[in-house]
């Protein structure tokens, strides 16, 4: 676990992440400017650090309703604005970028942040980036596998010789700059179903698994399949960290949490998926067994510990700004996470 900068004795890590979404606040109809939204994210990273949150992530989505397309630049600003919090992408759409360029960017962020940078590489769940950046969606799976393998190799070797199908070959190419301690934690972003989790396992790469909602137990097969594949491929599953992610909203009472989150999750789904979040399903969400993280402080703690028992993950990543959540609500969430949620989960999960 050390090479991934994770110390299990300190207990499960808690992180925040954003896709940099720029969805109108459904309660006011107002949309922030891109500038205001980016500044908000940098501000949120500082508050997260003060609250004792372990990780802060920013992801890229190249289409309307998003604003951190240049997520590495935003992460650079966050690296400068903070001192101790880990900084990660969430995720980097590797298929549409050059792995060498991605590695250079993150190695640089690692230097600026004094060794706090990580990469989470994914295929993206929206297709805007492919068309915009000229990548054939037909080859989407193969391009990603090839680029992720190259990225892993760049991380392991300073001088790289490599040949593939979707990028010019590398002949003893020196990769500069090198990260502070020679390598970066690199994770693979995995959606719900096991297929991609199995690929992560075979590659022996840490997995960040999305568990957006529905019964938490439904994601267990992906976790099991990941560890099983890692083992079959000659890796020690207990050396490979797993992170899970979910949409998140905590408040003092269940009612307040439901009322606070519903308009945003419903409006956000409407905007980016084309249909809202059914109330009946949302009403079930505070149950400990449901993966969607909405509820009172106590309910959230119970959910996290339930999932910790279920998956044995090393990190949980919360998305607290989905669907035009105003900054005062984001601040309130960070406050509760720092004051109540993190101390409770660390107490139970630290060795």
């Amino acid at each position, binding site marked *: 676990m050390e090479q991934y900068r994770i110390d299990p004795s300190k207990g499960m890590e808690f992180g925040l992440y954003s896709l940099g979404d720029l969805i109108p606040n459904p309660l006011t109809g107002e949309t922030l400017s891109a500038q205001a939204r980016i500044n908000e994210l940098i501000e949120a990273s500082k508050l997260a650090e003060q609250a004792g949150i372990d990780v802060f992530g920013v992801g890229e989505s190249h289409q309307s309703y998003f604003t951190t397309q240049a997520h590495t630049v935003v992460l650079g600003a966050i690296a400068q604005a903070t001192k101790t919090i880990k900084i990660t992408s969430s995720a980097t759409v590797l298929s549409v970028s050059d792995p060498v360029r991605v590695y250079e960017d993150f190695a640089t962020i690692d230097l600026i942040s004094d060794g706090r940078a990580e990469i989470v590489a994914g295929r993206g769940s929206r*297709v805007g980036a492919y068309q915009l950046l000229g990548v054939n969606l037909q080859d989407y799976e193969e391009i990603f596998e090839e680029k992720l393998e190259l990225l892993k190799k760049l991380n392991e070797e300073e001088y790289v010789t490599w040949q593939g199908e979707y990028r010019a070959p590398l002949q003893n190419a020196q990769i500069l700059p090198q990260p502070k301690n020679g390598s970066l934690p690199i994770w693979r972003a995995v959606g719900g179903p096991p297929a991609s989790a199995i690929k992560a396992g075979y590659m022996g790469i840490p997995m960040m698994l999305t568990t957006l909602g529905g019964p938490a137990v439904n994601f267990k097969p992906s976790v099991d399949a990941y560890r099983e594949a890692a083992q079959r491929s000659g890796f020690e599953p207990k050396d490979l960290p797993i992170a899970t992610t979910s949409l998140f909203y905590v408040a003092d009472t269940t009612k307040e949490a439901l*009322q606070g989150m519903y308009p945003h999750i419903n409006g956000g789904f409407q905007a*980016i998926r084309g249909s809202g979040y*059914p*109330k009946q399903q*949302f*009403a079930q969400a505070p149950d400990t067994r449901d993966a969607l993280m909405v509820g009172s402080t106590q309910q959230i703690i119970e959910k996290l510990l339930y999932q910790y028992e279920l998956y044995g993950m090393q990190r949980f990543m919360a998305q607290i700004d989905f669907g035009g959540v105003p900054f005062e609500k984001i601040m309130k969430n960070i406050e509760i996470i720092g004051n109540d949620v993190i101390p409770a989960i660390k107490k139970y999960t630290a060795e």
Partner: protein
Amino acid sequence: MKIVALSGSIVGSKTKTAMLKTVEMFKQKYPEHEVTLLDLAEYKVEFSDGRNYFEYEGDTKYVTETIMAADAIIIGTPVFQASIPATLKNIFDLLPVNAFRDKVVSIVVTAGTAKHYLMVEQQLKPVLAYMKAHIVPTYVFIEEKDFLRKEIVNDDILFRLERLVEDTVVIVDAFKAIRMKKDEEYDF
């Protein structure tokens, strides 16, 4: 209430004739509701490639977004090789899995022979159910002999279409009332 009448084939005239008649009945009976006819023969719709429906452009975007904005969809389909035409299946493939959640779908089917009577039960309804539609149980099955020169000449069919139009509206209202009652239970 928004109703879309979807004519699912790009060839032939029977399904379109039936849908034109259905739309006419709708407009007569319910002038307060908005009815849109989508005749696939008039649009160039791309094959589904996995994108979200609103990420397509041109006709594909228009057709899918119009369907998604509707409260009810009346699907008109011929029978091709004991099933629905590929053009209609492509519309389903373009839409998300829950596309028909909280929507009512009713069916008008045209066929050369009565032998295809169960096609809707075996081919179309399972797809609609998977996509969460409230399906109007009774559909209207129209045969070759019920048409003459692009007119429906069987009174039984005309009466049945009229009832289908009524049922569609009644069922939209009923499910809307159920949903509102259920939503009242929640304080968020």
